């Protein structure tokens, strides 16, 4: 949990292809052509949209919390875990921290 409140900045990887249909996104990490595509729906799709521009994790947590009208403390762990998961899948990169 020590990473949860970091100021990490996340962005979509540059080496992906993605299609979007009806609030559902399917993304493919082109740097791993054998890897299967990844389906993002619901909150996952929302965070993906938010990552159209690089953003800090703190701000992403705030935006998700606002969308669901809950306190950021309630979603920060899930958002953090999801970002790490996308990172493992090669779909996003952590590009450092905001000053």
């Amino acid at each position, binding site marked *: 949990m020590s990473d949860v409140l970091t100021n990490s900045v996340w962005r979509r990887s540059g080496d992906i292809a993605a*299609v979007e249909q009806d609030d559902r996104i399917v993304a493919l990490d*082109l740097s791993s*052509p*054998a890897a*299967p*595509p*990844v*389906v993002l729906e619901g909150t996952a799709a929302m965070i993906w949209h938010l990552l159209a521009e690089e953003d800090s994790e703190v701000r992403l947590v705030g935006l998700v919390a606002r969308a669901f009208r809950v306190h950021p403390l309630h979603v920060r762990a899930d958002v953090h875990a999801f970002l790490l998961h996308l990172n493992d899948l090669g779909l996003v990169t952590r590009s450092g921290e905001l000053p």
Partner: protein
Amino acid sequence: MATRGSNGATGQHLCSGEAIPLLHSLVTRVAEDAGIRVLFIKGPILAMQGLRPERQSVDVDVLVDPSRFEEMQQRLREIGWRIEVPGTGAHVMTFHSKAYRHDNWPCEIDVHDRFPGFFADPQDVFEVLWARRTTAAIAGREVPCPDILGNTAVAALHALRDPSYERSRRDLAFMTEALGEALDQGQLRELAELAVATGAADTLRPFLDAIGAPKLGEGTTPAKDLEAWQIRTSSSGVKTVAYLYQLRHARKRQWPPMLWHALVLTEAEVRKAQPDAAPGAWGLFEARVRRLRRGLEDLPRAARIVWRRQPADEPTSEGVARQRATTSGANQKAVRA
């Protein structure tokens, strides 16, 4: 939140509308990494280029630099793509593509080293199309494809191959209307020259005439090629034709193994064509009998198609003229229907 793949733990599946664009990007990347030139033909790019109405494609068609064809297939195999059922049946014309499948994807990639109807050397055809390549934005990536005139030739040949199909008629009518208004005289001439350079001056003729392109290169297709095209375009759906055509051009001593293979085919091919066939040897036997019965029903029609034409092993101007007239006549009806 995220699910890996079409066969992921939560059972989510990709639809073709999602898979087709992604596969264009995937194949582009695989080809780029290997330094292999590819061009995407048919598919969603045709609609983007205004050459057909929007509709869902069922597979991805990619034309590969023929000199790197085997290597491209190897690259696909290395990432899990495979030919599920190798085709061993007869074809009137040299078969033009290999269909690859993958467990993670709901549709096939058809890997072409040639496209039927272009009778110039496949490498020459590729170079002509490559020289006029462009790119299309699909799934957020730029993928290589023939330009509008190049894809027009491909799409028109695809429709002219099965002129009796309703979809072919619609596609030809759509292209004729769209391009008849859009192309100026210079572009019409360019298209006619492209047809000559790719050995499609005769096969594309009905379409070229319909859009008012100048008559260039008529009668330049070797008679045997034109005969094969003529037989293929007049036998859509009649599979027996290919076997008869193969027998007609084979030595008599080659007939027994050919006939035997025509009768039994491979188990995988028979089961692919008849997925409801019962398992086991008896199920296979029944499926083969059904296939044979259908083949025999088609036989009289197939024989008329194959044997009503004179042998055309050598190109003769008289033969070319006669076949061109027949082909043009048959296909013209399709274009104007």
